[in-house]
C-alpha cells in the first residue's frame, strides 16, 4: 500500500482535517478576547476557505480512482457529491453565524467539519469496515452538535435520545454487516454481491437485509426508526438540526442505494402490486409506506415549526425510499436530485427558523404571525422553501418529485406494478400541502401582534437565504443543471 496514493485520493478530506486544526487553534489562540459573534465570523471564514480548498481538490482529482480496494472510491459522482456536502457545510456554517447558542465556537465549527469529513468518506466507501467507521465519525459529531446548546436542557435530552437510538442502530448495522461477511466472505460490496450470488433464499441473508435497513432507516429517519428525529430537531441548536437534516441525509441515501443495489444486487425482490417477491425492495417499500403515512399525518398536528419540519423530513424520507426501491439508474439519479434539492430547501427553511427564533424567542407556528410585514424578504424565502417542500412548481421540490415518481413507475413500465406506491406518495404529498400552508398562512395572512418591530436579518444570513432560495427556484426551472451531474 502506497500511503502517498491514499493521501492523494483523500486530498479533500485531508484539507478539511487540517482546517479543523486551524479553526481550533485560531479560536484558542487568536480569538479568545473577541465576542461570540466575531469568533463565529472569523472561524466561519476559515471554514469557508477550507471547504473551498477541499472543493478545488475534488475538481483537480489527481488521485487514483481506487487506491485502497474499495475503502476509498473516487469517481466523478462521488466528487460531485462531496462538492454538494461541502456546499451544505458552508451554508450551515453561514447560518450558524447568526446563532447565539454557544460560546464554544471553535469546537462547534470543528465538529461540523469532522462530521463533514465523515460524510465525505461515507460517500467514497465501498467496504463495510470503512462504511462503518465513516458512519460513526459522522454520527458522533452529530450527537455532540445536537447537545451544543448547554443552556437548554432539551438540547441535552435530544442528544441523549439521538445517541441512544444511534448506538442501538449502529449495533444492528454491525450485526447485519457481520452476517454479510459470514455469508459472502468479504467486506467489499462487489465481492459480497459475487459471494451471495447463487446462494438462493438464505434466511440469514434476509436477517442481514433487515439489519442493514434498520441501521440506515435510523440515519435517514424513516419509520419505525424515526423516534429520535422530532426531539433532536426541536432540541438541537437550529443550525445543528439543519446539518443533521441535510448533509447527513444526502450521504446516507447515497450509501444506502450503494449497499442495496451493489451489495445485495441479487436479492432485490419486487414490490409490484400483487406480485411481490421477497428481497430488500419489499422491506424498503414497507418502511417507505410507513414513513409517508406517519410523517405526513403527524405533521398536521404539530405546533412547533421545527417539529413540523422533522415530521416532514420523515415523510420526505418515505418519498426518497421510493427512488431506492425503484432500483434503476434513473431512479438513483432522481433520488440524488431529490435529496440534494431537499437538502438545500430544508437548510433554507432552518435558516429562516433561526432568524425567527432569535427575534421572537420561539419556533411555534404562531411566532411566524405577520412575518411578511416584519421581514418581507425573509418570508418570501420561507414561501419558496415551504412551497418547494410541498411540491409546487416551478420549484425544485416539484420537479424532484416528478423525477422520483416517474422513475419509480418506470421501473416496472410494462405492468405499472409500482404505481400503487406512487399513488400513495402523491396522495400523501397532497396532504402535506395543508400543513405547509398553515405556516405560510401565519406569515402572510395573520397580522402580527400590535407594534412588534421589524426583524433585522444579519447580512450574511440574508445573502445565504437568498442564494438558497435562488437555487431552489433555479433548479426547479432548469433541473438539467443538476441532473446532468448525477
Amino acid at each position: 500500500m502506497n500511503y502517498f496514493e491514499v493521501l492523494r485520493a483523500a486530498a479533500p478530506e485531508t484539507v478539511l482535517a487540517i482546517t479543523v486544526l486551524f479553526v481550533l487553534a485560531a479560536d484558542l489562540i487568536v480569538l479568545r478576547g473577541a465576542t461570540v459573534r466575531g469568533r463565529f465570523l472569523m472561524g466561519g471564514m476559515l471554514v469557508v476557505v477550507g471547504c473551498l480548498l477541499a472543493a478545488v481538490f475534488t475538481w483537480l482529482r489527481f488521485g487514483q480512482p481506487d487506491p485502497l480496494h474499495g475503502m476509498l472510491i473516487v469517481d466523478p459522482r462521488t466528487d460531485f457529491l462531496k462538492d454538494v456536502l461541502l456546499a451544505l457545510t458552508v451554508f450551515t456554517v453561514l447560518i450558524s453565524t447568526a446563532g447565539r447558542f454557544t460560546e464554544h465556537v471553535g469546537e462547534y465549527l470543528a465538529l461540523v467539519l469532522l462530521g463533514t469529513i465523515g460524510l465525505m468518506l461515507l460517500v467514497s466507501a465501498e467496504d463495510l469496515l470503512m462504511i462503518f467507521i465513516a458512519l460513526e465519525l459522522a454520527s458522533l459529531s452529530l450527537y455532540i452538535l445536537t447537545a451544543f446548546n448547554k443552556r437548554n436542557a432539551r438540547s441535552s435530552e435530544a442528544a441523549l435520545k439521538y445517541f441512544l437510538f444511534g448506538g442501538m442502530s449502529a449495533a444492528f448495522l454491525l450485526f447485519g454487516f457481520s452476517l454479510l461477511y459470514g455469508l459472502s466472505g468479504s467486506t467489499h460490496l462487489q465481492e459480497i454481491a459475487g459471494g451471495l450470488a447463487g446462494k438462493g433464499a438464505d434466511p440469514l441473508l434476509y436477517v442481514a437485509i433487515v439489519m442493514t435497513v434498520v441501521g440506515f432507516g435510523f440515519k435517514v429517519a424513516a419509520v419505525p426508526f424515526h423516534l429520535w428525529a422530532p426531539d433532536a430537531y426541536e432540541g438541537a441548536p437550529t443550525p445543528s438540526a439543519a446539518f443533521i437534516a441535510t448533509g447527513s441525509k444526502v450521504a446516507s441515501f447515497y450509501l444506502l442505494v450503494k449497499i442495496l443495489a451493489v451489495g445485495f444486487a441479487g436479492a432485490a425482490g419486487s414490490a409490484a402490486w400483487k406480485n411481490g417477491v421477497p428481497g430488500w425492495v419489499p422491506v424498503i417499500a414497507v418502511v417507505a409506506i410507513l414513513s409517508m403515512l406517519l410523517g405526513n399525518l403527524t405533521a398536521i398536528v404539530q405546533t412547533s415549526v421545527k417539529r413540523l419540519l422533522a415530521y416532514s423530513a420523515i415523510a420526505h424520507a418515505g418519498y426518497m425510499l421510493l427512488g431506492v426501491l425503484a432500483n434503476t439508474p434513473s431512479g438513483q439519479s432522481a433520488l440524488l436530485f431529490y435529496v440534494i434539492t431537499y437538502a438545500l430547501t430544508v437548510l433554507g427553511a432552518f435558516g429562516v427558523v433561526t432568524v425567527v427564533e432569535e427575534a421572537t424567542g420561539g419556533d411555534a407556528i404562531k411566532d411566524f404571525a405577520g412575518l411578511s410585514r416584519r421581514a418581507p424578504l425573509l418570508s418570501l424565502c420561507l414561501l419558496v422553501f415551504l412551497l418547494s417542500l410541498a411540491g409546487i412548481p416551478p420549484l425544485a421540490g416539484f420537479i424532484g418529485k416528478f423525477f422520483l415518481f416517474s422513475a419509480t413507475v418506470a421501473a416496472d413500465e410494462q405492468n405499472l406494478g409500482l404505481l400503487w406506491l406512487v399513488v400513495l406518495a402523491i396522495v400523501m404529498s397532497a396532504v402535506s400541502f395543508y400543513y405547509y400552508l398553515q405556516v405560510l398562512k401565519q406569515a402572510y395572512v395573520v397580522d402580527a401582534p400590535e407594534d412588534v418591530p421589524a426583524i433585522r436579518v444579519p447580512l450574511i444570513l440574508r445573502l445565504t437565504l437568498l442564494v438558497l432560495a435562488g437555487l431552489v427556484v433555479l433548479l426547479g426551472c432548469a433541473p438539467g443543471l443538476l441532473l446532468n451531474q448525477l
Partner: protein
Amino acid sequence: MLAWTIYISFIGVLVLMLLPREAARAARIIALLTAVAGCGVALAGALQQTNPGEAATIVKVPWIPSLGANYYLAADGISLVLVVLTGLAAVAGILFSWNVEKRTKEFFAFYLALIGGVYGVFLSFDVLLLFVFYELTIIPKYFLIARWGSTRKEYGAMKLALYSFVGSHLVLIGLIATWVVARAQTGHASLDLLELSKLSFPAGFQHWVFPLVFVGFAILAGLWPFHTWAPTGHVAAPTAGSMLLAGVVMKLGAYGCLRVAMVLFPEGVREWQWAIAALAVIGIVYGAGVALVQRDFKFVIGYSSVSHMGFVLLGLATLNAIGLSGAVLQMFSHGIIAGLLFAVVGRMVYDRTHTRDFNDLQTMQLGKLLPFAGITFVLAGVASMGLPGFSGFVAELQVLIGSWHAFPKMTLLAGAGIVLGVAYILRAWQKAFYSDTTVPDNSGHDHPLDPISTPERIGAAMLLAASLVIGLFPGLLLNWIQPCLASPLFERLLKGGTA
C-alpha cells in the same frame, strides 16, 4: 408574441414587489397598465393568427430532455378564445378592485401572478408545462382569498386550495402513468401534447386513467359533486378574486378536461361519456335549484356558476362538434357574465352596503339608490339567463343542440335548469333592487351610498359590450373554435362520437 401575455404579467409582479409599501396609487396604475398591456397583446396576437385550426408554435425549446419536456407554448383557436377572455377578465377585475386599500401592492402582485399562470395554462402545449402553470395558480388564489376576502375567508381559501391541490394531484398521477406508458410504447420520452395525442393508449389503461385526469381537472370546473369549493370560495373571495375564480379559474379546469384528458384518451371519454353528462346535468339543475333558495346575494351567483359550468361539461360530454364548440363558447360567455355579476354583487353592492343578505337589501331600495348597479345586474342577469343577443344564448343553444343529438332525455332536464336560471335571477333582482317591502328607511344610513365610480362604469361597460358583441356576432369566436375542432387533434375524439 402571445407569450408576452405571460411575461408581462410576471414582470408586473416583480415591479409591484419592488414598489414601496405606501404607494397604493402607483400599484393600482401599474397593475392596470400591466393587465391592459396583457389584454392588448392577447387581442393583437389572436388577430394576427391566420389559421386558428392549427396550433401555431410561439416558442419551443428543450426544457428537461430526460423527460422529453419542452418549453412549448403554442396557440390554436381554443387557446385564443380563452386567452382573450383572460385578458378582458384581468382588466375588468382590476377596475373593480380600484378601492382595495389594504396592502394594495401585495394584492395586485398576487392578482397578476394568478393571471400570468392562467395565460400560461391556456398557451401550453407541453403537458408538464401546462401542469406547472396550472399549479402555479393555486398559491395566489389562496392568498387573495385568505387575506383580502370576507365571510369565512380562511375556511373558503383553504378549501379551495386543498380541492385544487387534490385535483391537480389526481392529474399528476395520470400524467406520470401516461408518460411511462407512452415511453414504453414509443421508446422515447415525450410530454408533447401533439405527439402524445397521436398515440393510442391501451383501452384498459384509458379506462382508469381518463376518469382520474378528467375528474382531477373537473374539480376546478365545478363538476358536481366536487363543486362545493365553488360557492364558499366565491363568497369568501374579494370581488376581483371571485371574478377571476368564476371568470377564468373554473375555465382552467374545463380547459384541462378538454385539452388533456379528452384529447389524450378518446376511448376513455366514450366509455365515461354518460357518467360525465349525468353529473353535468345534475350540476346544472342542482346549482340552479340551490341558487333559487339562497339568502346571501353572492351565494346565488356562486351556485349559478356551478350551474353554468355544468353546461360546459355537458357540451364536452356530447362529443360532437356543435356541443364542443358550444362548450368553449360557454367558457367565454360565462367568464364574462359571471365576472360582471360578481362585480355587481361584490363591488357595487356589498362594498357600499356591507351586507349581502336579501332581508337587509330589501329594505334599502337599491334600485333607486344605485340605479347603475340595478341596470347592470338586469343586463348581466338576462345575459346569464340566455336571452338572445347576448353570448350566453348562442353558447347554451349550441350545447343543448349538441346534447340533444347525444342524449335527448338528459337535455330536457338541462332545459329545466335554464328555466330555474330565469327564476333565480329574477328573484335576486327583485329582492336586491326592486323590493316592494316599503320599510321606512331610517336604519341609520347617515351617509348616502357612494356613487358608482368611473372605473366601475368602464369595467361594466367593457364586459357587457364583450357579451353583446359575441352574442350578436358569434362568428367572431366560432371562426376560431370550429376550424380547431376540425383539426387532426380532435379527429379521434369526434369520430363517431355522436352515438
